[in-house]
C-alpha cells in the first residue's frame, strides 16, 4: 500500500475514567495523588483529578502502534503535554485521536502527525510518531 503525505487516518476514541487512572498508576508506578485524589488535585490548583500525561501519550501511542501493525513498529515517538485531560468522578471522558501522514521517508518509514483532544481541548502538542508499517 502506498502512503501519501497528507492522508488523514480514521478517528478513534479512547475513554478514560478514574478506574483507568488507578490502573495506570499501578502499572507505571506513578502514584502522584493529582491523578487519584480530587481534594489533593484541587488543593494544588487543578480543576479536578487529571490523567497522567504519560497515560494520554501511551494511548495515543497505541493508536500509532495499531495503525503500524504492532508495538514493535513504533521507532520514535514524541509529544508535548499542553493541557491536562480532566477526569471528574463517575465520568468517562474522551480521548479522541486522529492522525495525518506527515512524511514518508526513503526507507519506507512514515511520520504520523497525531492529534489528541479531550472534551474538545487539544491535550498534546507536536505529537509525532515515526513508524515502520507492517504490510
Amino acid at each position, binding site marked *: 500500500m502506498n502512503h501519501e503525505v497528507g492522508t488523514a487516518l480514521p478517528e478513534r476514541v479512547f475513554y478514560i475514567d478514574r478506574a483507568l487512572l488507578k*490502573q495506570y498508576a499501578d*502499572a507505571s508506578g506513578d502514584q502522584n495523588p493529582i491523578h487519584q485524589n480530587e481534594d489533593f488535585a484541587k488543593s494544588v490548583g487543578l480543576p479536578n483529578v487529571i490523567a497522567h500525561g504519560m497515560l494520554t*501519550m501511551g494511548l495515543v501511542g497505541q493508536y500509532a502502534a495499531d495503525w503500524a501493525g504492532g508495538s514493535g513498529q513504533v521507532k520514535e515517538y514524541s509529544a508535548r503535554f499542553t493541557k491536562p485531560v480532566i477526569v471528574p468522578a463517575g465520568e468517562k471522558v474522551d480521548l479522541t485521536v486522529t492522525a495525518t501522514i506527515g512524511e514518508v521517508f526513503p526507507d519506507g518509514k512514515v511520520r504520523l502527525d497525531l492529534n489528541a483532544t479531550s472534551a474538545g481541548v487539544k491535550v498534546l502538542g507536536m505529537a509525532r510518531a515515526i513508524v515502520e508499517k507492517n504490510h
Partner: protein
Amino acid sequence: MINPDAIGRTFKGAEVSITQSEIDAFCAVLGETDTSIAPPTFSIRISLDQSQNVLTSPEVGVNWDRIVHGDQKFEIHQPLKAGDVVRCDSTLEGYKQMAGNEFVTARSDLYVNEKLAVTNWSTLVVRA
C-alpha cells in the same frame, strides 16, 4: 534551584529486571493484546523513577512535588521484553529558566546487556 554543577552529568542507574506481569499490566491499560514486547512508552516506568532518584538527590536538590512533565520523546532501537535486565543511565542534558520556572531535560539511556535499547528524553518543569 537545581545545582548547576549537576547539569551535563550522567548518573548511572541500578539494574532492573523486567517481568512479564509488568508488561501485561501496562498493555492492559493501553488495550494492547500483544504482550510479547513492551509498548513504546513502557520505558517511562523505569526512566522516570531513575530521573526522580537523580533529581531529588541532595546533590541536585529538586523538590519532586513541584515537578510537571513538559514533554517526552522516545527512540526505540530494540523493544523491551520480559526477562530483560535494564540499566538506565540518566544525563541531565539541558537546562533553562523561564518565567521563574526551571526546565530540565533528562536523557535516559536504557541498556540491555550493554546494548542501547531505548533512549528517551523527559523535559521536567520545576514550577516556581
